[in-house]
């Protein structure tokens, strides 16, 4: 603080402090505390707010229960409440999306970092950035057009003789996964590229000269070095997928509920903001747990992830 005052004087220091306090307190901490507090209050008509019925309870969190349906895990069916099922499937499929994006992005990041000539790199990056600048809603819409029953994908596959009858792509979770992977794969490519790029190419050559087969070089040299990139990419892709509302709404069907859609229904259709707060809080907890898990598994700090 003394350092700040010495360098910038009272007026500027006060301005910096005020702006930061406005950001962190008014825009971030207090809204989240309000949400947390509201999540324990019952949903009441305006006249009864503050009345005898307005007491703290876990009632909103209990609204995730009820309406039991079967959830099949490895061929065994468990009865679980429908919203719990949606929640678990959202987490599960977000992990699936994260893994698919990693598998797709790893070779690409390696190519960009270690194989391609540095001169063509800016052009390639520009081409990669184009879809990133196109709005998410339009990218999901593009896949909606491609995947429709009478759409171009089925037409191409049929003309190539790969399939005989049209495939109903928009069913279950697969279109949602296709859309999420397409939308967020670049959030895996760039952190991985950053991590690999900082690896000294001599280390790879040394491993090769010493007779290491390519897969072992990757497993023992390149992959360990890419850890911060993997963690960063995984956190971003998971968080964006689990929190995505556009892609599941546009590409999903009745059989593919996403937890954000549940929240949206409660907030905007039922107008039960207190239950909405409780559900949003659960989503926040799930994402926080995932971030801490990744940080623990890959042994990285928050500042490595935020790069």
């Amino acid at each position, binding site marked *: 603080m003394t*350092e*700040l005052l010495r*360098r*910038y*004087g009272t007026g*500027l220091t006060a301005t*910096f402090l005020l*702006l*930061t306090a406005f950001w*962190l307190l008014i*825009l*971030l901490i*207090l*809204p989240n505390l*309000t*949400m947390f507090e*509201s999540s324990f209050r019952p949903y009441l008509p305006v006249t009864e707010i503050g009345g005898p019925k307005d007491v703290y309870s876990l009632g909103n969190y209990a609204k995730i229960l009820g309406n039991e349906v079967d959830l099949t895990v490895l061929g065994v069916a468990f009865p679980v409440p429908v919203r719990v099922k949606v929640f678990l499937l959202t987490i599960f499929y977000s992990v699936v999306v994260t893994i698919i994006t990693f598998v797709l992005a790893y*070779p*690409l990041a390696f*190519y960009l970092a270690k*194989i*391609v000539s540095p001169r063509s790199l800016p*052009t*390639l990056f*520009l081409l*990669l950035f*184009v879809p990133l*600048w*196109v*709005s998410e*809603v*339009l*990218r999901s*819409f*593009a*896949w*909606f*057009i491609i995947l429709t029953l*009478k759409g171009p994908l089925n037409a191409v596959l049929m003309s190539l003789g790969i399939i005989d009858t049209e495939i109903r792509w928009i069913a279950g979770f697969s279109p949602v996964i296709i859309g999420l992977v*397409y939308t967020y794969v670049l959030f895996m490519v760039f952190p991985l590229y950053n991590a690999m790029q900082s690896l000294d190419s001599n280390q790879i050559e040394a491993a090769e000269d010493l007779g290491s087969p*390519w897969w072992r070089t990757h497993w023992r040299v390149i992959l360990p070095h890419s850890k911060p990139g993997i963690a960063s990419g995984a956190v971003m892709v998971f*968080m964006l997928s689990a*929190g995505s*509302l*556009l892609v599941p709404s546009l590409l999903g069907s009745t059989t593919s509920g996403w937890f954000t859609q549940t*929240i*949206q229904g409660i*907030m905007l259709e039922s107008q039960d*903001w207190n239950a*909405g*707060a409780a559900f*949003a809080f659960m*989503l*926040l907890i799930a*994402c*926080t747990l995932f*971030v801490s898990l990744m940080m623990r598994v890959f042994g990285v700090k*928050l*500042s490595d992830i*935020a790069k």
Partner: protein
Amino acid sequence: MHKTRNFLFHFYMALFLIYLLVPLLVMGGAAFNDSKLPTVYPWRGFTDQWFIAMWNDKRIWVSFRNTLLVALAVVALAVPIGTAGAILINSISGRARSALYGLMVAPILIPGVVIGISTLLFWNNLSIGSGLHLSVLGQVSYIASFVMLLVLARLQSFDAGLEEAALDLGASHGQVMRRILLPHLYPAIGAGAAIAFFQSIENFNVTLFTRGNADTLTVYVFSKVRSGITPTINALALILISVTLLLAILYELNRRRKVRQERLLAAPAED
């Protein structure tokens, strides 16, 4: 052996670019198809009616204006806030620094749905109803983090000795800020403003919960795609993609020009 490997990698890169870009072409192509549904197959002939329909759609223009207003407001707030945060972080150390840093980065990792709902509830408790002003505040809460990270990275290459020298020579704190620190930060601030602008235009989750009845372009396109789909959206998409591509090409040409200039400048020095 590296030859086959490199060929496979080049091939994969090409496939990946096709995978990224073809969906955008398909969507753009559908804008010209004379079919009531947005598709490129079957092709029913060329038409420009969807562009005319788009031009005459008043709601598109209203939501376009709203989007621009929100984005400008977000830039105006997020850039000073993020810059102030970065300068603050840069001149403290120890636990306070890591705690503050954690708080400032956290919004990037919070799902947009959560930001939207918490903003809505907080301001509603203060009797400020939903509307685009809340969308601005919600978006700023996480977009300021991007600005902060960019400016903080730029501050790493700043020589604090310059500030000292200026102060010793009798410059006021305001002069040091205007003449020394800010000019060094301008590239990061510019990049931050551009990112803030695009992030705001793209935003859907925060806006959806805070907007009240107002439309932004993203929300409007979303509602349009979900209800009666017409290829007007494809016309809009094609225009947006073309603008993006145009900007990208201009950027690339400008970069190549700069590289050439630098080479020309560097050449005589080597002699």
